[in-house]
């Protein structure tokens, strides 16, 4: 029993991504059509060339019909998947395995979410009948528990940590400002973010991801077929996933300064891809910055920083656009927005652009020496989460 991975066995040959916006003028069907056809066009194929489909949507629709109906698919399998906020990555993961298994030649993963029709800010899960004892805290408040715990454990002055978190938001805003598809394109300096009123623990709304509508897609084929479609495929180096058992909610030993699910997923992914020094081997990483403290501890969970050091590395600019390891070069959830089912694929879309040298010049990073990128997508809360890590490369081997 082991996680073997499918390194270099499948490849991405086309991707699409809509702008992430409050798309008051577009419904789920519009977004699904636009996000899917952008991917098909990128791969240079037609809709009938896809043999099987995976749809990731967390709460905008149910069943494969949510995709097959707007696309008017003819006799094709469509699987709708949901895995909290890692839903988009889950759809992609299943499409990759389907091709690797030999079951299909061409598979598509489509992630789409229409969240702005609820009438409320933020994300609102549909209520599953329950015994009325479930907590009703917002995700922002749940993740806000990380900040004081981190400050306490590593002896960081809370005011200094406040500035570090603001710097993370500011970095992602600066990157997003350079991204036409991003929801928020305004640069925000650290002082302005620190001055915002707290709404959950020490977090203000500027510590929270934007909530947007959007769609993204990826077309997956066997690696040996990739060059029939493109000169610059992305190879799947690793796919890993961990669903935690929520023991962090039960276990007094859990201290809210790390996410085990993310660390385990990263370790598995690095083993699959043969990565031993992620900070130096990766060209970039797209991580799940749902809230600023999340990005902070992810730098440690993903092995980019030593435990207790991420706040210093963030402050030193290690993860800036032209830092040692650029993180969230497209603006991240913070600035790009977070249409749940699409976000995991949106992360890969940025890797697709950067590793192929197609990112807009003002945010293009240097990939001459490093041809690997990481996407990290989580869902849930500290102590009870799911985590995906994918590694992608622009050349085999």
């Amino acid at each position: 029993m082991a996680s073997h991975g499918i390194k270099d066995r499948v490849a991405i040959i086309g991707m699409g991504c809509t702008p992430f916006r409050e798309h008051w003028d577009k419904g789920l069907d519009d977004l699904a059509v636009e996000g899917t056809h952008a991917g098909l066009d990128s791969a240079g194929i037609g809709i009938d060339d896809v043999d099987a489909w995976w749809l990731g949507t967390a709460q905008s629709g149910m069943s494969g019909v949510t995709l097959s109906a707007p696309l008017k698919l003819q006799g094709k399998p469509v699987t709708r998947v949901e895995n909290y906020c890692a839903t988009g990555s889950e759809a992609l993961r299943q499409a990759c395995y389907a091709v690797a298994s030999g079951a299909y030649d061409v598979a598509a993963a489509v992630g789409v979410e229409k969240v702005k029709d609820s009438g409320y800010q933020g994300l609102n899960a549909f209520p599953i009948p329950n015994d009325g004892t479930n907590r009703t805290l917002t995700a922002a408040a749940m993740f806000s528990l990380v900040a004081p715990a981190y400050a306490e454990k590593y002896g960081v002055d809370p005011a200094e940590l406040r500035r570090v978190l603001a710097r993370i938001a500011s970095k992602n805003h600066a990157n997003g400002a350079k991204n036409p598809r991003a929801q928020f394109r305004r640069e925000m300096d650290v002082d302005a973010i620190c001055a915002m009123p707290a709404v959950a623990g020490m977090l203000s709304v500027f510590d929270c991801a934007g909530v947007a509508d959007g769609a993204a897609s990826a077309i997956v084929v066997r690696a040996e077929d990739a060059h029939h479609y493109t000169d610059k495929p992305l190879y799947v180096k690793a796919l890993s996933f961990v669903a935690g058992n929520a023991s962090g909610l039960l276990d007094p030993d859990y201290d809210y300064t790390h996410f085990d699910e993310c660390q385990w997923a990263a370790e598995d992914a690095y083993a699959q891809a043969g990565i031993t020094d992620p900070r130096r081997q990766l060209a970039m990483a797209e991580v799940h910055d749902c809230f600023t403290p999340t990005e902070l501890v992810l730098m440690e969970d993903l092995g980019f920083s030593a435990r207790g050091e991420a706040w210093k590395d963030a402050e030193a600019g290690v993860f800036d656009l032209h830092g040692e390891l650029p993180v969230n070069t497209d603006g991240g959830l913070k600035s790009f927005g977070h249409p749940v089912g699409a976000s995991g694929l949106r992360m890969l879309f940025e890797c697709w652009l950067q590793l192929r040298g197609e990112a807009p010049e003002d945010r293009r990073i240097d990939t001459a020496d490093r041809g690997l990128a990481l996407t990290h997508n989580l869902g849930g809360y500290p102590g009870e989460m799911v985590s995906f890590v994918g590694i992608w490369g622009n050349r085999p081997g």
Partner: protein
Amino acid sequence: MSAATPNAVRGIRGVAAYLPHWRLQRSAVTAVLGSNAGKGTRTVAAYDEDAVTMAVEAGRRALRVAGEASVDALWFASTTGPYAEKTAAPIVHAALRLDGAVPAADAGPGLRGAAAALRSALRSTDPGVLVCAGDVRTGPAGSTEEKGGGDAGAAVLVADATSGPLAAEYLGGASATQEFLDRWRAPGELRTHAWEERFGQQRYDDLAGRAWDAALKDAGVDVEQVSRVAVSSPHARAGAALAKKLGAAGVDVADRLDQSVGFTGAAHPLVLLAGLVEQASPGQVVALVALADGADVFLFRVADSAAEAVAARPTVDEQVASGDDSLTYAKYLNWRGVLPVQPPNRPEPARMSASAAERRLDWKYGFVGSRDRSSGALHLPPARVSFVGGAVDDMDPAPMADVPATVATFTVDSLAYSPSPPIVFAVCDFDGGGRLPVELTDVTADQVSIGMAVEMTFRRLNTADGIANYFWKARPAASARVAAPTEGGA
């Protein structure tokens, strides 16, 4: 559960009051409305408390004093219960984790319910009868009930002397009844109406006099032997007049708590009874007079041994002396639904599922987790598979309602829906193991700190589709309140 011995000595095995943490200074009402709202404070049920939760808190205290005493019947009395149709007593029954064979019923919706249930309990053949009462007294801004009322729970466990030591032995009592109209409130109405005061005073004077005389006779006690009397009356002037009369007869009259607590409706006779028993010297005879659409008089002799007359903690006096009187009148009105304020723009909670709640009865109402036999790991809520070692279906129930806990970390959520935002939320670690991330209550955000000692309290989380949804929250332990800067004497 054998039947009580015929003619057995009966009395009070345990009695306790629960006064909520919050107080409203009557001067705060005066400041807003202009007209003089009087002096002192009244107790205020928090937004997440109601008659049931306060009755439960009092019941927990009374049972704690009573030790292993059996409870063979449960009465719940209130004029402000959560339901008109559904019986509320089974909620109390579940929260107190009483046996399934114990009947639980409401003592009717009137103010006389608790006194009637007490009388019934004292004459019952059930070895142990628990009477729990709770009321939230309110009305339109400036109303008599708002100014003179108070919120409280109280509980008394009546038992046979054969089943264990009694804190106070029942000597005898009597009642008087005559239909007359003094004050009334239609179901669902906010306002309590009252007839001309002097009419009610005259009627109560007559009824109380008859019942008092008959009670002394029934108990075989002369008035000189009565050390102290407590008078509970919804009609303040009638209560004061009776107190004056008894005082003139040489009986020490207990504080009716008008200046500190207010009249707490159906709960008030039992609140005063708790105070009487707690304050009495060994062997003293004490009397309770409960006026409410009639008169009920009870005479007790407090146990000779102080060891037997163990007081519930905190005592009424201790509760009167603590509490937080910084509550604003606006917040009070908001909590009572008189002044609705704009909530955060978030979905309101969905109603609970009846079947899901029933499956989790011990957890939801009794706060019972499970403990893995092999690893000892505690699970809140109870689980079938252990998170340590993975043993399957090898757990024992772990009652946690009375286990102290400590705040491991906390946050304040201004975005989430709450009947009274913001939500103060903490990860609480229990002494001896176990963790629950849970909402805090009876606390303001600036009073919370990591390491704070907390205790569990039964609360009404929300109401959806007319369903009152109960569960537990944590609140600062009494020990954690000592240093609280806003602590105010009542």
